[in-house]
């Protein structure tokens, strides 16, 4: 099954808010640790190495785009 990028939550704002609230009160470093654990938990739940690789690819691509944009702004 390919990676789904459709909006899968009935109420996407609730999901975003749940993640925001999970980080409230954490230091920046704690947040990074928390995220790492969360990613591993969700990856295991998906349980499909192809989907995980596709998700990693999408996230990487977005980071590269963002960096290019920043470089353009600095020039």
């Amino acid at each position, binding site marked *: 099954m390919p990676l789904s*990028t*459709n*909006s*899968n*939550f009935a109420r*996407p*704002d609730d*999901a*975003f*808010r749940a*993640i*925001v609230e999970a*980080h*409230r009160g*954490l230091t*920046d470093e704690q*947040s990074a640790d928390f995220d790492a654990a969360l990613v591993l938990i969700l990856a295991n739940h998906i349980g499909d190495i192809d989907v995980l690789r596709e998700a990693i690819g*999408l996230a990487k691509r*977005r*980071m590269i*785009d*963002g960096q290019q*944009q920043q470089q353009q702004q600095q020039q």
Partner: protein
Amino acid sequence: MAQANSPQAKTQFGYRRHPDQDRPGQSPAEHPVVVVGAGPVGLSLAIDLAQRGQRVVLLDDADRIGEGSRAICFSKRSLEYWDRLGVGDRMVDKGVVWSVGRIFHGESQLYQFNLLPEDGHKRPAFINLQQYYAEAYLVDRISDLPDIDLRWRNKVTGLEQRNDSVLLTIETPEGAYRLHAQYVIACDGARSSLRQMVGAEFAGQVFEDQFLIADVKMTAEFPTERWFWFDPPFHAGRSALLHRQPDDVWRIDLQLHRYADPVVEKKPENVRPRIARMLGHDKFEFEWISLYKFQCRRMDRFIHGSVIFAGDSAHQVSPFGARGANSGLEDAENLSWKLDRVLRGLSPASLLETYHVERSLAADENIRESTRSTDFMAPNSHQEARLRKAVLSLAKETEFGKRMVNGGRLSVPCSYDSPLSSPDADAWCGGPSPGCSMLDAPVAARAGEQAYLTDAFRKGGTDFTLLSFNNGAAIDAPDGVKDIRIGGEGGLADPSGLVAKRYDAEPGAAYLLRPDGYVAARFRHPTRAAIAAALSRAQGSNLNGLN
């Protein structure tokens, strides 16, 4: 802060002495309802009550309509309410109609949305209209209603709760007087003095970021849409909003630094270059400039003895989502029919408690939505900023990312989990469930004649109404309940089939609507007894659990 405005409607009113002021101090005049505050909420509530046959005293401490555009977005639900109050056409004729919003990130559009992507509704998703026009039209409407006694420059300075009444002290240019009210409705805004007088707290969240709101006058080619930017090229790192109003006035809303100096930022010579950068020119004049820190907060209880709070006095939200004035108007429509029934002795006083139950749920929802939007625009930590950055970047190519971008979630009627609703006994695959607002759809009394379901509801008198779908044996509405029949002889036609579709109705089905247009109950195969039971419940007969 007001710069200048010239609404084409009367905005200045005179103080006039009232005979109540000449009564001896020991026997103040007695009134069933005193509404405090002639803003959109107080004015609408007074009109609604007067149309239901109540006499209303409406007090305002000023003698003019406030300057500045302030609230500008009025929702479909508010327009349907104003239709019932006889001012809908005037508002819509003057307002600018919109339903499309666009969200930009940097230079590119992330997505657009349409808040009313279907036909067959009398009113649009939203109009934009300066608050002073809305207030001026409501004041005009009041001059047709002799049961409303509108007293300008009457400032409430004292409030004393008695057994089942309230004694008010009112300051005027000619000195103070007192009057007795069975009920006082406090519509006196976010800084409500009545709230202080009853000693109620107003707790919640203050957002640290500051926002500059400027209304500018210019001729421009932008479409009539709501445009929202994250990190626009003309205002790097922050957010911006552009929105059209009547008379070539445009609302511009710019997020500022958390620590910006309000006095400096508000100076027109400092605002002008920012706006010029945004518009690409400086051919505009300022109508109004204001600087805000937003707050989301509410009273714990909307009812204190015989004093009932409505609108901003009871709950305050940040403006992203148009949930301020619109939710205040929903308060008014929720309260007026209940207060009318209680004053007539038709329902127990506990019916008023359901105003608190239903509208405090709505306030929680509005606060939740506008808090989320404000937090998305002004992240609270590095981590929240990172999450937002991820969402914005993912939104470029994914549907789920777009849906998580939060540039304001616009006001829609709340659905009430209410003791007045009768739960569904039948299976429904759509349509408004009990506790939801009625949906509009086209109807026709005769072939070719275009009207709407909301018109039929209004013409019936905005009372309890049975909306039934004819199957040749349509059930009669109980005594005192108005009737809207779809199909059959003497019934309204459903030329587009949209009434049946939007109500998931087959012939024989019926909806019981409350006087505020909310669904109280619905039936696939109604019986007289089931309708009567739902009606009795919606009128507050089974509220033993509420005080």
